[in-house]
């Protein structure tokens, strides 16, 4: 069994990070930057691909068209990007990316359903616990959201390294992680657990202020005294343990420190979002549940608030796992809640049509419009995020969107195949003027290998977020995609 080459901490030195920016290895104290310069990054990932014929815009780089529903062939019925028509000037459509690192990790056999450890990491996989179908690979390096988030949180003493969100709890096994903190430690993926319950997230972000001042302060001190003891014990344990075991304890210790940091940070003077959905235990336990749309919306609202209140600078959202067998589009109409067939397997979706099944059958006349509507619905959520960011004023009069990069990715190219090339990703926001938005970039590919590795986008985002790198992930996939800057 091969072991990871780098420890979690030594890892950063291999990412092409400039020597001045090795946060976990140095003991530089954090310094504050004025909020007007704050950059934010949000990453969203969705599986199962798209119908390329109607998903991609048409036109030229600077003059491109997103059709209306009424303008696409009737057999397709929906224009998936329609919700972005009025946001064209804020986006860059990048058509033709490839998870080259994923393809090279499994000799071409890697399906899109095992793509998550490769998506935001840009590195070939390392041996790890099984993620899917006997594929035993995991991320070799942190995903960019965690890499950027941790660095900025340390620099600016932020409450959270990043928000990792998912509308459902991880199903089972190891295949539901988008964000990674490094290579696996022994048997465990080194991936932060997603936050699910919006009410819990709300409490984590803003909580404590409902208690009386004295009461809250006492609770804080009690918790800190416990975490202090626990942290000291973990450090004491570390000294004699073997290498892998030390990594495990180190991860635990880091988490304890993160929780202490949350205790120290209060969200004062901050506009808290109203949560529209009713608290319900079902949405934490029911597969195929009918709350997903509300959960996603609530999580977007919480994300925007957390960014606006500078509790964190980074968020990631996975909707919802590598295949979405559990996602039934209850809210899109009767056609979506008919009984499913082939992928109504394992009974995860009340036996109903689900995203995975629809994607696999999207070549059939009945399912094609459903696929497009599903893709359109995801884009509606993305558009909602962009709009919220655009409506939220930042400290210096600009908008949150002006200072953000919101990346919408897909794991696969098309629904039926599991290819991870020719991927259509979208970037919204100029990230403080770094990116030149309002453009349609395309490298349509006939075959794998023609596409541009996603590493170029990952590196560009790191640079835009003021955590400079010369490449991200494996160096042989190239550095920043300078085309994104205009």
């Amino acid at each position, binding site marked *: *069994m*091969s*072991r*990871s*080459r780098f420890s979690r901490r030594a890892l950063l*030195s291999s990412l*092409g990070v*400039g020597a001045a920016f090795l946060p976990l290895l140095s003991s530089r104290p954090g310094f504050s930057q004025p909020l007007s310069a704050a950059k934010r990054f949000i990453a969203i990932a969705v599986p199962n691909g798209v119908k390329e014929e109607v998903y991609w815009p048409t036109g030229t780089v600077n003059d491109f068209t997103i059709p209306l529903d009424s303008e696409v062939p009737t057999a397709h019925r929906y224009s998936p990007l329609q919700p972005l028509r009025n946001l064209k000037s804020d986006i860059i459509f990048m058509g033709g990316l490839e998870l080259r690192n994923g393809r090279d990790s*499994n*000799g071409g*056999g890697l*399906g*899109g359903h095992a793509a998550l450890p490769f998506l935001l990491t840009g590195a*070939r996989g390392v041996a790890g*616990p099984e993620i899917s*179908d*006997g594929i*035993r*690979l995991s991320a070799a390096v942190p995903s960019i959201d965690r890499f950027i988030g941790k660095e900025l949180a340390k620099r600016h003493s932020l409450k959270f390294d990043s928000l990792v969100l998912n509308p459902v709890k991880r199903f089972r*096994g*190891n295949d539901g992680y988008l964000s990674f903190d490094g290579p696996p430690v022994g*048997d*465990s*993926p080194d*991936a*932060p*657990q*997603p*936050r699910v319950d919006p009410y819990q997230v709300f409490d*984590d972000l803003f909580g404590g202020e409902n208690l009386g001042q004295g009461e809250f302060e006492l609770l804080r001190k*009690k918790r800190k*005294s*416990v975490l202090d003891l*626990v942290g000291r*014990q973990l450090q004491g*344990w570390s*000294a004699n*343990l073997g290498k*892998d075991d030390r990594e*495990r*304890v180190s991860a635990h210790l880091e*988490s304890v420190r993160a*929780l202490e940091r*949350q205790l120290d940070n209060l969200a004062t003077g901050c506009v808290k979002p109203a949560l529209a959905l009713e608290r319900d235990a079902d949405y934490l*336990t029911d597969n195929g549940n009918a709350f997903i749309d509300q959960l996603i919306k609530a999580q977007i609202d919480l994300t925007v608030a957390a960014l606006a209140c500078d509790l964190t600078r980074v968020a990631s959202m996975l909707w919802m796992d590598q295949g979405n067998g559990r996602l039934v589009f209850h809210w899109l109409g009767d056609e979506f809640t008919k*009984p499913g*067939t*082939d992928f*109504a*397997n*394992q*009974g*995860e979706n009340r036996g109903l049509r689900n995203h995975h099944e629809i994607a696999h059958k999207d070549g059939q006349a009945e399912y094609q419009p459903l696929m497009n509507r599903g893709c359109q619905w995801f884009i509606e959520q993305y558009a909602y995020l962009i709009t919220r960011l655009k409506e939220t004023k930042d400290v210096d009069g600009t908008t949150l969107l002006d200072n953000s990069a919101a990346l919408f990715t897909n794991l696969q190219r098309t629904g039926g*195949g*599991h*290819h991870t090339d020719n991927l259509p990703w979208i970037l919204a926001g100029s990230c403080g003027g770094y990116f030149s938005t309002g453009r349609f970039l395309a490298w349509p590919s006939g075959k794998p290998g023609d596409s541009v590795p996603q590493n170029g986008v990952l590196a560009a985002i790191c640079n835009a977020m003021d955590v400079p790198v*010369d490449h991200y992930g*494996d*160096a*042989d996939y190239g550095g920043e995609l300078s085309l994104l800057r205009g």
Partner: protein
Amino acid sequence: MFPGPVRELAALIQVTRFRAPLSYHHLLFALGLGHGASACTATIGGGSPDFEAGSGSGNGQPADAVADPTPATPSAWTPGNATGDPNAAGYMPLRQLNRTEYQNALSDLFGDARNVAQLLPGDVAGTSGFATAGLASDVTVQALQQAAEQLAKAANLPALFACDPAGAAEAACLQTVLDGFASRAYRRPLSAAERTEFYELYTTKLRGELALSADAAARVLIEAILQSPGFLYHWELGPISPDRDATGVIKLSAYEVASRLSFLLWSSIPDLELLQAASTGQLGNPEGVQIQARRLLASPKARETMRNFHLQWLEVALAGTNKSAEKYPNYDASLAVAMEDEITAFTDDLFRGGGKVKDLFQSQKLFVTPALARLYGVEGMPFEGSVQRMGDATRPGLLTRAGFLSATSNAYEGDPTKRGVVVRKRVLCGSLTPPPANIPPLPPPEPSLTVRERHAMHMALEPCKTCHELTDPIGFGFSNFDAIGAYHAQEAGRPVDASGKLTDLDGKSTDFADLNGLMTALSDSQDARACLTRQWLRFGFAREESRADDHSLEGAYQAFAASGYELSELLVAFATTRSFLYRAPAVDEVTQ
């Protein structure tokens, strides 16, 4: 623009990357090959050679070679064939209590069955094939805090501690808590340093600085104990460095052995009697360990492990699953619970009643609720408690329990491939290469075709055939059972054909004409017996077996065989193997 060392490092990465553009795995598929243990192992080792080579900068291999490299080498054991050093023992990687263990430990400590483990993120699927705790992320640590606070708040302190911290003898009670409650939580006596730490927390910080009442301070003390590594980790050594013996392995302390025993057999912490056995030196020799192992197995608490092991072993996880409401209107969550309970009861009865491997695959005892009895078609037949014996031979053994059959089906019908895969991978410990991407779906259900017929294309096409030949013919033996495990004699208007073949790990096939034939073949299969031995090691140690375990596997297996393959004897024997009572030092571990 960037410093020199970064570029050099980048160049270094570049060079090592191009060692092997095609993975071994890809090559095998291209050649239409792909089954057998070697391919599976090669995918991990050979498929990513870049990650094996030392770059000299902090890689996994120690600078000086470990005296006995076998803990890192894959196992080569087959029955009658153990190579390597008989004194070796495997690694004991540090791991947290998994969710089940955490919940059971707390239930035992507090006498309170409230489900706090549901606050925690789920376990990860370990390479052992059994769930293991993942790394402690910030969400995990916060959940641990919440769980600890909930339990501490609800605790009845005088009952929990056997003294009242708010009473007159506060200082004495504190000592009792550290000697009693904390010690039980830690599964060992606290060290002097640990006692001091907790004492300081309680006295100086909580009672002193924060001016909490004795009651409040005691509750915070509980919270601290429950969030500390001594409780959370399977490491009953604490932060001291262990002794190596002359052969280079570390002998586990009595308390470590006690914990290994209780987590193996009860999926929970030791009881007071077991801790006492540890403290009075009774666990220092195999005979003493055996006595305790038998006592633990005889206890009703062993049911927890029977449940935990068997549901995971056969990949039965029915919570939240659904079946077609049209075809199976009576399937609901309570039926799923009854199915899992039946597997628990069946195996518990087997292990504590002297059952043997043959009974595992052929016993016809049923453990049913009224709804399950209806499913099995046995309602109205005489019961002995909840045990029902069937007259005919339609349900031989554990693999014909509705729980297994339901878990290996989709929402509509049984899945012979899934059934065959679980039997091959989990019951025989065979391997299978992962399926390729872009598999076309099977033809949809049709009234005139049987499930077997619709799966025909698996055996007709390459590269499908190579793997499916090993799985589907096993699964066909279960053709009588639908998606919830109900029995049907007819399918598509014809008598069900449940013939097939069982291929062993050497590639030798045994044909069978019906389900009973399959179960007989499994009962007689040496692969299955050896596999059971391996699976209990994987479950007990939360890791795969290595070369250093080979002699331990052999020893346990021979004792198992000598007893006529009595299942409880396997566990008792396992508890006295070298790998159970000793461990190899971890890479870079500091030892005396």
